[in-house]
């Protein structure tokens, strides 16, 4: 195993372990809040001061637990990517996972990041971690080119010679792009064994798998 692979495997193993522990933490919070909610229910409608505020606070806790669970599930799947050097991957799921994990970065730039899943779903045999890195790199390249209010979409589809993923940007240009982003993306795509083509007529690229 090469040095970089060992490092990725180490990070993945530690991260996956931590996500499991955080699930336990979230489970304790959910059950404890749920127990309080049950007891409030048993107390009946009258006689409990601030009942509505308590119920609202508990609903917030449950909502945040659900958010944490979804984050941990996606992070756990990403952490397990280095487990296999090649696997049959559902491209809709892969695009959805990286889009979910990059939402925070998109929000910070006031961009919308979405997935347009293919029907039927398409799969390809690829290195899971390298695919995630290329998709993240493509989104990053586009985020540098769009002004706030723009939309980035990831769309797997069937191309002439195999599956493709188009990453498209819509909206006003932000100015000049980061000059290092495209060469980095080309290197990542070459490592994956995928073709990369910049689209004409607007910011976007096509990844040929």
């Amino acid at each position, binding site marked *: 195993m090469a040095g970089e692979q060992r490092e990725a495997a180490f990070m993945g193993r530690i991260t996956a372990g931590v996500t499991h522990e955080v699930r336990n933490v979230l489970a304790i919070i959910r059950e*404890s809040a749920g*127990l309080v909610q049950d007891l409030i229910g048993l107390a009946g409608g009258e006689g409990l001061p601030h009942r509505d505020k308590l119920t609202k606070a508990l609903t917030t806790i449950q909502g945040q637990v659900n958010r944490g*669970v979804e984050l941990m599930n996606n992070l756990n799947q990403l952490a397990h990517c280095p487990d296999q050097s090649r696997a049959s991957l559902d491209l809709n799921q892969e695009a959805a996972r990286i889009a979910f994990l990059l939402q925070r970065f998109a929000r910070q730039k006031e961009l919308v990041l979405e997935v347009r899943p293919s029907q039927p779903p398409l799969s390809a045999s690829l290195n899971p971690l390298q695919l995630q890195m290329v998709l993240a790199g493509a989104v990053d390249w586009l985020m540098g080119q769009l002004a706030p209010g723009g939309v980035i979409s990831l769309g797997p589809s069937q191309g002439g010679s195999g599956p493709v993923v188009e990453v498209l940007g819509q909206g006003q240009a932000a100015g000049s792009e980061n000059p290092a982003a495209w060469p980095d993306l080309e290197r990542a795509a070459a490592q994956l064994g995928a073709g990369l083509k910049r689209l004409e007529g607007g910011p976007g690229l096509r990844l040929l798998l």
Partner: protein
Amino acid sequence: MSQIKVLLVDDEEEFIKALAERMTLRDLKTEVALDGQEALKAVARETPEVMVLDLRMPGLDGLEVLRRVRRSHPQVQVIVLTGHGSDRDEEQARRLGAFEFLQKPVDIEDLVRTVRQAHRAAARDQGGTAPAGAGDGGADPGARGQSKATA
């Protein structure tokens, strides 16, 4: 009305005690074990109808508990509830006879529904029927009044 006896096995004490209280409020009779050895003793002492079992515990792990319980008390239905479950764990647990494999955190109503389904399956396996009411309890503890059983 006879209550379903449920043994909850998990080394996360705060989690399992809160869960036990919530299940008790939903008319299930619960007992708690904090590790695998304790779970086996509890099964020998008072055999539950359903067991809710974590996988990663110090000492005897959940899969070993599942293997032993299914061998010694095949009538006990085991629901795995874990925060550490991989696809491989699920495959192994189902091969060993787990009734269901759930990930933490789980919605309490989903868990209670699964416990009741497991109980009905156990009754069918034994050629009987689940006691009236034991499989069809409502979900809202507030609508049911204080539970008679304690964890």
